[in-house]
């Protein structure tokens, strides 16, 4: 008889719930009559994400001490559980946004792939060795490649999918090569084991580490590995962009923190400088390029590059405060990012064309609720008080200062100042019309504006609640984050 390893089903449950969701929605695409296909998929997905988030919360509750499970291929700890909650809830909100997207084909597939990608990410953040990491990475990446190209009638969507696939396989290749080199140098796959086995000065080992860092930086869309981001974000269906901007970032950053701190603590002096340099590149390129954009999705894509910069500062700090700051920052960031893309999606559906700063004009008057939410999202992304974005930046900067990176703080503050130029530009576009633009009622004159999408409004409202609520109820969130970080061997 073959000896089977002990399987910790609870640790796997959040992933499995989503996997089941994916399977059921896919079956529904075949078995459920066409008329009910969307409703079925949406309801099942919502249930699945909720179940996954609840299960992850249970894992969080019961994992005060980190432990390696399933033959040390994954780690059961609060860090992974908190990230899983965040990712699953992002999936939930994105599903609400997607429900009204008017998609005619591939409805079941869309939700199945979204759930599959989420399942991959939930596993990814808990990866305990290089194998699981790579497997989970490919799992969610391949789902995302297809999701990006799912609007087969739009050339841009196909282009985005293809570009993402090609550059993505390049990135995966580098990551895999890096894993191979590290394995070759140490003979170990597990993060913990790599740290123990380390032959730090081995060129093979260090090269492998550089390549793993590059592969992950690609997923985070940190400059200079960011170049796919604007093209893919612009071309992909807006709901998918919303999802990627939040969930992928959470997954990749949390894992980057985990692997750097658990597997490579001896080399911290090397990688923390490298991460800091990547952060500076991202801040500079993301913010500068965003100023030049007219297309709102591209603008937000560059904004996500710049946020990758802020988040990398937290990793570069390499201290518990940094980890805490990273996890806290991701909460309002994800909410504001998903919310902003949801508003863009609403505008897109209303006008049937790409949303630019010009076509955004007047949204604040026509859809007051979405307008108000959008400017709060922009303020949060820019880091204004009364939004969680402010505290996120504050925590990141104080962690960096604590670690002695004062020049990084200076650059971060300058980048924040620069970012106001384009965030406030969006707010201006919402409320100000150019002189020759038609006055109110133009939309009505051409046949009436479409009715409000209740589900989308709910999603945007929820995002707003998190964005603002994370400012007022910061203490419980910070406590959650510091408990999660306590699992890491700082």
């Amino acid at each position, binding site marked *: 008889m073959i000896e089977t390893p002990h399987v910790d089903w609870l640790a796997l449950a959040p992933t499995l719930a989503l996997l089941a969701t994916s399977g059921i929605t896919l079956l529904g695409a075949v078995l459920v009559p066409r008329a009910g296909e969307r409703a079925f998929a949406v309801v099942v997905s919502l249930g699945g994400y909720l179940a996954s988030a609840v299960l992850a919360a249970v894992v969080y509750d019961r994992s005060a001490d980190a432990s390696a499970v399933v033959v040390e291929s994954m780690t059961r700890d609060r860090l992974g559980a908190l990230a899983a909650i965040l990712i699953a809830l992002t999936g939930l909100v994105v599903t609400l946004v997607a429900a009204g997207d008017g998609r005619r084909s591939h409805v079941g597939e869309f939700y199945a792939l979204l759930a599959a990608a989420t399942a991959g990410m939930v596993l990814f953040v808990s990866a305990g060795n290089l194998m699981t990491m790579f497997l989970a990475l490919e799992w969610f990446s391949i789902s995302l490649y297809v999701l990006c190209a799912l609007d087969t009638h739009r050339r841009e969507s196909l282009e985005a999918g293809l570009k993402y696939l*090609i550059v993505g396989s390049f990135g995966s290749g580098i990551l895999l090569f890096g894993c191979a080199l590290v394995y070759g140098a140490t003979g170990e796959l597990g993060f913990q084991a790599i740290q123990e086995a380390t032959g730090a*000065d081995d060129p093979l080992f260090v090269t492998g580490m550089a390549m793993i860092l590059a592969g992950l930086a690609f997923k985070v869309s940190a400059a200079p590995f960011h170049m796919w981001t604007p093209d893919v974000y612009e071309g992909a269906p807006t709901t998918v962009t919303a999802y990627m901007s939040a969930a992928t970032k959470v997954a990749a950053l949390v894992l980057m923190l985990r692997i750097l701190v658990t597997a490579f603590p001896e080399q911290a002096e090397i990688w923390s400088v490298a991460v800091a340099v990547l952060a500076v590149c991202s801040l500079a390129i993301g913010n500068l390029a965003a100023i030049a954009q007219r297309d709102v999705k591209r603008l937000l894509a560059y904004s996500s590059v710049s946020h990758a910069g802020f988040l990398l500062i937290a990793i570069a700090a390499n201290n518990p405060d940094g980890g805490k700051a990273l996890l806290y920052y991701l909460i309002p960031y994800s909410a504001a990012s998903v919310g902003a893309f949801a508003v863009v999606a609403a505008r897109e559906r209303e006008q049937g064309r790409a949303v630019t700063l010009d076509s955004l004009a007047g949204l604040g008057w026509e859809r007051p609720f979405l307008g108000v939410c959008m400017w709060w999202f922009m303020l949060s992304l820019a880091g204004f008080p009364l939004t969680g974005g402010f505290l996120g930046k504050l925590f990141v900067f104080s962690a960096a200062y604590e670690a002695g990176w004062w020049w990084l703080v200076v650059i971060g503050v300058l980048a924040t100042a620069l970012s106001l130029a384009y965030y406030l530009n969006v707010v201006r576009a919402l409320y100000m019309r150019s002189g020759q633009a038609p006055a109110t009622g133009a939309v009505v004159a051409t046949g009436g504006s479409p009715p409000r999408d209740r589900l989308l409004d709910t999603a945007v409202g929820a995002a707003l609640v998190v964005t603002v609520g994370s400012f007022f109820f910061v203490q419980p969130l910070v406590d959650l984050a510091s408990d999660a970080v306590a699992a890491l061997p700082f």
Partner: protein
Amino acid sequence: MVFGSWLCLLAPLAGFLAILLLGTRITRRQAGALSTFAVFAGFAGAVIAFVDAWGRDAHDRVEVTTAWTWLQAGDFQAGLTLLVDPLSLVMMLVVTGIGGLIVLYSNGYMAGSDEERRYFAYMSFFVFAMLMLVMGGNLLLLLVGWGLVGLASYLLIGFDHHRPAAVAAAKKAFVVNTIGDAAMALALFLAIAKIGSLDYGTVFSAAEDGVLSDTVVTLLALGLLAGAVAKSAQIPLHTWLPDAMEGPTPVSALIHAATMVTAGVYLICRTHPIFEAAPDIQHLAALLGLATLLVAGLVALVQWDIKRVIAYSTMSQIGYMFLGAGIGAYGFAMFHLVTHAFFKALLFLAAGLVIHHLDGEQDIRKMGGLRRFMPYTHATFLVGSLALVGIPIFAGFWSKDAILASALAYGGSLGWVLYVGGLIGTLLTGLYTFRLYFRVFHGEPAGKAREAAAHHGEGARSMLVPVGVLAVGSTVVGLLAIPGVWEPFETWLEPAVEPLVHPSTGEEWLTSLVAVVLGVLGILLARRAFTAGRELVPDGAVRDTLEHKLWFDELYDAVVSRPAQLVALLLRDRVEAPVVHGGLDEVAEGTLRGAAITGSAQTGLLRTYALAFTVAVAVLTLVFLVTR
């Protein structure tokens, strides 16, 4: 007690938010009803808290509740903490009770004006802000409330934003108040630097234990006093209050008479340990109060605008409260605050009835003889006037005389100066109050009064009821402190603020006798002048000076405003335009150029992306290999 306090604080906020969010979905009338309901719900909360506290032991009436801790880092802790004790309970009852009556009155007064919803939203917001000020559990929240009431006051003075005079008055009020706010904020910074906390208890014990140097305590008290003086319109930061009468009359009643302007008195009573540690500053408060009560009383003698006369009398009465607080008679100062809230709100609202009746006429030269056409208004206004002058049984008699008696009991040259000055003030009060009363209600109806009489009633019921309630209040509320017989008000406040002086019953009755004689003398003089058709102050240099309000506005204009404008213009032409603006333009252009270059690196071609990727990986690897 906890529940009542939160209800009291949050009900007006909920009303404000509801009116704001519902927007045009509710009618103007409903907005008024909502606001009235919200403020009265707050009053109910205050009453619940009060009844609960009343039933407790005298030293168990302090409740500190924290809604949530916002941020905690080491010893530092920030959050929403409320302090409910006898002192704040008194303020809560006054703010929501009188506030509710005035909001109710506004339903009739503002009917038909544009933007009623905005008005009622602001009124609810003001009540919330004022409650935040009095209930805040530490100096930080006090400052938050302090700033928010300033904002509400600004918004309401400039409510009629089509009239330039209203906008200018709002701006003036805000700027003058900001001077006080800034001084107060500096004091708080000093407290953080030297004590490390803004908690009342910590700061007070630091001040009492003598841990701080004299200079620090003096500066701390001075900063707080500056804030109090600005908010309460005392000399030298008093110039905004008469102009603030540009706001709607109910606003003048609520904010610029009954509640907000008395916040300075509350502040001194609340932070009395700091002032007691810096006695010079406390005496300064008393002297400023004396100066204000005399100056305002004199200026009130020559004003022609019905609301301005009452505004100057407000300044004068707050002068009495400062005088009381400055010699440590906190209980009496607070008592005068309460009675003043009743009779001053009454006077303003009755004046509002008159103004409403005369279609917005405020010049008392164009009034007269209204006694015949407005018997109800006449009676209530008379009650308010008698209470203001301090005629026995009416509220002002008990509270003002108690302050003067405290000055007598305080003794020393300071006590005597304050005593005599305060008594002269009583004479002035009688003069200006009854000059106004006779001008408006007696004699022959002039001009508009005659026309209006034909087709107006006295006002809507929602206006008459609050006035009646306040008239009753102005008559009976003074009975809460009868020297030597029944003093529940002092006993109530004693655990929260221990007074420094205790006038004997004899001193109190003696003072009362003198004050009443002087007040009646003032009334008789005013009556004689009126029947003889003379003004109280004959034309000449004196009258000229008083009409120019002692040239305070002109002085500030010459000393502060004009030089500041000159410097500002110079800076704009010599520094801002060429250096700052030019520099910023350069930076902005550079940024845009950089943005364009960065954008153009994005070719859209996969090979570029792959190249960038490869180069970056190579560099990263190389650097790692070199630095390992």
